[in-house]
């Protein structure tokens, strides 16, 4: 089968990390530790596993971070190179899988938990907090926090992979593949909304209006009683989408702190020596949906004392003085939780009007045009796209 494979290359990873910011073309060219290969279709010969034919597989911000060397080395032991990336997947079962027949259209919850690894449930899995599984490096399959980071299972950027019954969710009738593709990121957004612990009337700031930010906005609006939701957006089309997804107000990155200050009657403090300004006062909850240093700093600096900062994007390092001084609750939000039913909720939300419109804008590429696809994904915000995906069925 055809697949895109990420492999170990210290030189390419270093090049991408050092020069990718200034020369973005490197990230999809000489510095990309990714190749198109013909592989034997992955097959996990354990109970509960089946083969899945990929219909669509999305390109996520975490995939781009990994390919451009921006991902922290913290995650290095949690993957097994070489592997086929792609964890946002919609496809059809080739084999029957438990109660599901061959040909069933499914989306996957990519986390490889104790159940998939043939292990007795760890404490987190036993509580249903599957995204917090402690056994993601052991068991029947090789190390890998999710499908798309594990050598043995394969990933979505290929024609076929292996999936475990515990990961599967049947696509409801009437949903297009593009809609179904969005179920996984929406499930993450649902989890983000739960982790945000928004109280009725709380003011929320969502920093970022890419896929993560927009879907988090939708989940916050639909699942919580948030009052004002302010979204930080760079591009004009993101502003429009953010409003469609439930934002009360959309602001540009450069004006975020000022607008939050105005809305909350906070005080703006401007330290010397070019240090970033911050608020005394601010919103109740902020969601960093970018993962850059600037975005996280904005969140930390715009949250009121005792407020909550939710790390939805894979975070960069930032000055944590505000977290200490303002006694902020900084909480992570990773993937989705099976015990909380995040995926089921997500599949409902995918039917939302705004999601239907968004699904029609998904940009699919055949596997062999992977450089163009990644280039498009890197520039998605600027080009007016929210989700870029691979369609292995396409040949042109």
């Amino acid at each position, binding site marked *: 089968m055809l697949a895109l494979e990420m492999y170990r290359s210290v030189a390419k990873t270093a090049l991408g990390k050092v020069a990718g910011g200034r020369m973005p073309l490197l990230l999809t060219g000489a510095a990309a530790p990714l190749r198109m290969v013909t592989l034997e279709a992955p097959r996990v010969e354990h109970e509960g596993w089946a083969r899945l034919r990929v219909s669509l597989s999305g390109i996520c911000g975490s995939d781009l971070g990994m390919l451009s060397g921006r991902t922290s080395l913290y995650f290095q032991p949690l993957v097994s190179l070489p592997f086929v990336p792609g964890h946002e997947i919609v496809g059809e079962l080739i084999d029957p899988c438990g109660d599901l027949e061959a040909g069933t259209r499914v989306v996957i919850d990519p986390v490889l938990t104790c159940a998939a690894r043939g292990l007795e449930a760890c404490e987190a899995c036993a509580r249903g907090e599957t995204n917090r599984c402690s056994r993601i490096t052991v068991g029947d399959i090789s190390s890998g926090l999710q499908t798309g980071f594990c050598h043995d299972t394969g990933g979505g950027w290929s024609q076929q992979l292996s999936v475990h019954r515990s990961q599967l969710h049947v696509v409801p009738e009437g949903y297009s593949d593009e809609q179904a593709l969005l179920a996984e990121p929406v499930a993450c957004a649902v989890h983000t909304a739960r982790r945000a612990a928004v109280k009725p009337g709380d003011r929320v700031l969502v920093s970022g209006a890419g896929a993560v930010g927009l879907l988090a906005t939708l989940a916050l609006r639909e699942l919580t009683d948030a009052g004002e939701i302010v979204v930080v957006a760079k591009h004009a089309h993101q502003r429009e989408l953010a409003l469609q997804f439930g934002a009360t107000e959309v602001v540009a990155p450069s*004006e975020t702190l*000022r*607008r939050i*200050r*105005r809305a909350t*009657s*906070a*005080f*703006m403090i401007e330290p010397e020596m070019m240090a970033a300004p911050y608020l005394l006062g601010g919103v109740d909850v902020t969601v960093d949906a970018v993962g850059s240093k600037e975005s996280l700093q904005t969140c930390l600096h715009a949250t009121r004392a005792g407020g909550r900062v939710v790390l939805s994007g894979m975070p960069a390092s930032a000055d944590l003085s505000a977290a200490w001084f303002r006694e902020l609750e900084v909480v992570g939000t990773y993937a989705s939780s099976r015990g909380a039913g995040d995926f089921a909720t997500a599949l409902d939300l995918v039917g939302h009007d705004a999601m239907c419109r968004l699904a029609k804008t998904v940009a699919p590429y055949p596997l062999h045009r992977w450089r163009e696809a990644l280039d498009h994904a890197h520039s998605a915000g600027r080009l007016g796209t929210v989700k870029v995906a691979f369609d292995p069925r396409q040949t042109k």
Partner: protein
Amino acid sequence: MTRPGFVLEVDDRTPPLLVHEGLGFRLEEFPQGTRVIYPPESLPTVPDVEGAIRESLENPVDSEPLRELMFPGMRLTIAFDDLSLPLPSMKAPDIRGRIIEQVLTIAAEKGVDDVEIVAALALHRRMTDAEMRHIVGERVFRSFAPSGKLYNHDAEDRANLEHMGQTEKGEDVEINKRAATSDLLVYVNVNLVAMDGGHKSVGIGLASYKSIKHHHNAKTMVHSRSFMDHKHSEMHSSAWRMGRLIGEHVKVFQIETTLDNEVFGKPYDTLLKREWEWSLRDQATVLGLRRGLAVAPQKMRHKMFHDLRSNYGLTGITAGAVEPVHELTVQRVHQQQRVKVEGQSDVMVMGVPFLGPYNVNSTMNPILAACMGLGYYFNSYLRQPVVREGGVAILYHPLDEGFNTLTHPSYVDFYEEVLADTTDPALIGPKFEEQFATDPWYVHLYRTSNAYHGVHPFYMWYWIAHALDHLGDVIWVGGNPRAAARMGFRSASTLRDALEMASSTVGPSPSITYLRNPPHLLADVR
């Protein structure tokens, strides 16, 4: 012999005319038939300034001499106009400092010890020590500032405001407590234009937001026609009611001064001359300035212009009771600035210079530029506006100086948030004014930094309410298109383009009038 102001009609012999545009100027060729209104030349100045001050204090109008109003043990407060007057700031010594010196001399002779001096800045920004020192002079500053007896009025200091009651129209009158509870309040004014002074001095300069909001609103402003004619200005009527109520509680001794038209010192004094009278030297100066400004970075141009000090000379000083003093003052201002103009025109052209009352030592942001053009210059008329109702205003300013966040923090939010929502003065007031006026951060910056009050940009926008109500279109020549659009206006690259754009409103052959200022002029439109 001073030549009066006059109206020139552009013909084929008329040279290109000077038009100010922010931190620079251009020479513009106007269509033939354009009327150009030139202000009168400077009136003769008072030869003995110290003597004139002394004379006014000893022989005031409708009042006992200042000396007789003072007695040992009394509370004396001296208030003075802030740095928004005159424009540009005058070369030292400032006339206010010279007057205050004489008032203090009399107070000392009469054994008055309890004296405080207050800068009547209303909701303007606090002045820096250097700015304060420039106005009152080194000696007064050193004598009073260190002991806290010379200070900026604080319109948000609840403990030091006195509510004196309400006018017959229900307007709250709340002013500086020290001033309100003094045995004598001496007000030292600079009456640069006809709208200054009178009951505006104490009634607004020393007031709080609670009091000022009664007349600084869109409704009042749109019914002030014009601000330069206080008897036909709704805003002045309100200030007069308040002033009379203040007069029932505290004795006010008003000292008003008028200035000539010497706005610029060398080398910019050429800019005040009429173009066809420029000597070769003047032409070389103008050419040199234009070339220099064209290549100078904005920061340098800002410094070149804002370091300018005016050569204003005193044309008169009157002291005594507020209203009769002000009548005489207005007469002198009219004598200096009034120009008779026959009839209105379809298009009015104005060059907005680098400086207005609210950007001294700061930047002329787009809101201030709009206020300068459509607030001050548009309203600089008697009887009726220079431009007919439904006509077009064409203004020159690049609208590119950005915002100074130290002096105008709330302006940035007003521009980004309020004007993005609506530019209608009648709508922004009810929806946003209270939020900005009571925003604790703006209040904090107003009280402790050098920031204009949070509500101040609203007042700028209210200033232009009459113009917006009256005009059919507003076009900025050379204006940043985004800034112009944000304010609800259009921009054009050249005057020709602007006139073509205006043709949809006033037709292809409109009558045009160009207000050639500065120096200040007051169009008396018959």
